[in-house]
């Protein structure tokens, strides 16, 4: 498990309107570009990252339940879920999200 990399990608998706739109348009292309960026990192904050096959699958398409079970940071995960849901009813988005994650209880989210 590389929880840090999962969290880093969650941060990247929600970072700006542009990155959110790019991920929504094509999750696989977004993740591939992010992984490619790690090959030539821009200092001082290394760009991009690397994922395991299982983690990549959880992002393509976005699977909140799997990412939660893997120990992604709940604050970051929820905000991406909210961002992907757009201007919809937060309560309804939350109900659907909780149904997905509830079976997994409280996985350790330390990096």
């Amino acid at each position, binding site marked *: 498990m590389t929880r840090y990399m999962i969290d*880093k990608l969650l941060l990247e998706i929600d970072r700006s309107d542009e990155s959110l739109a790019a991920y929504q348009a094509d999750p696989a292309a977004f993740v591939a570009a992010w992984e490619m960026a790690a090959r030539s990192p821009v200092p001082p904050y290394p760009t991009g990252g690397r994922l395991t096959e299982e983690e990549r699958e959880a992002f393509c398409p976005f699977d909140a339940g799997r990412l939660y079970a893997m120990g992604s940071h709940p604050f970051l995960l929820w905000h991406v879920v909210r961002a992907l849901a757009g201007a919809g009813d937060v309560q309804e988005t939350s109900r659907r999200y909780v149904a997905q994650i509830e079976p997994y209880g409280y996985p350790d989210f330390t990096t």
Partner: protein
Amino acid sequence: MAEIVLALGVPHTPLLWRLLEPEVPDDLKPVAAAFAHFRNLLEAARPDTIVLVASDHFRQLSTANMPAFLVGKDPLMRGTHPNEVRHFGLPECQVPGDPELARLMVGHHEVPPGFDFAFSDEMWLDHAYVVPLLYLTPSLDIPVVPLNTNCNAPPIPGARRFAELGAHLRDTLEASPLDRRVALVASGHLSYELGGPRQFSGGPSGPEFDERALEWVGSGDIEAALAGCTYEDLLEAGNLTFQFLNFVVCMGAARGSPASSVEGVVCRFGTEPFFAWDMA
């Protein structure tokens, strides 16, 4: 000398921002009233500077580089990140700093004894800072020294360290030649969950923790608070409850004095904390 004239503990629930105007829903009226009351308390205390204890939510600080305690020492800081504008409708803003007071804490050439603060010359304040400031000092004209605590990315400093931080802060200010009236404002939560199964459940995620916490603050019983704030205790109350520890900084600064005002306002977001310690 510098002195802490008032300490406040307040929430920073960012979803409040769109809900508290133009018309305040019934369950949030006491929250709006409590912020208005605290705004008056702060004005009456006439602070020169606010030391604002809060925890960035991965907006500027990620676990690529995560300091336990960090002081912002820049003269002017940017407030609110673009994704917070999108999520919460918060206004982008600028907040003046107090580099002189910040340097008192982090040192000039050598780190002073007591706390090895990390420092920042380019703080970018997230909603944990901006929400309290917008309600307590809407004109954003009082200089702020941000004191960031890591309450979101384990490993989180132990509760005792937060109490020691408050005591250290007060001792440092009182021993300094700087002439400052300081308001210590802590931004945090009682029991709170986001991203976990108990989120948006319509009330507090850990009502029993909230009851205990209100007692600790009301009695000033630091040791009881420390005993009840292990990592496991806080996680059990809700996965973001760690930010309660920012109020323990105020308890430490108050040196065990009971808070002069203790209110837990129960609303749709849980129990919103409003604590005041009159130190003048």
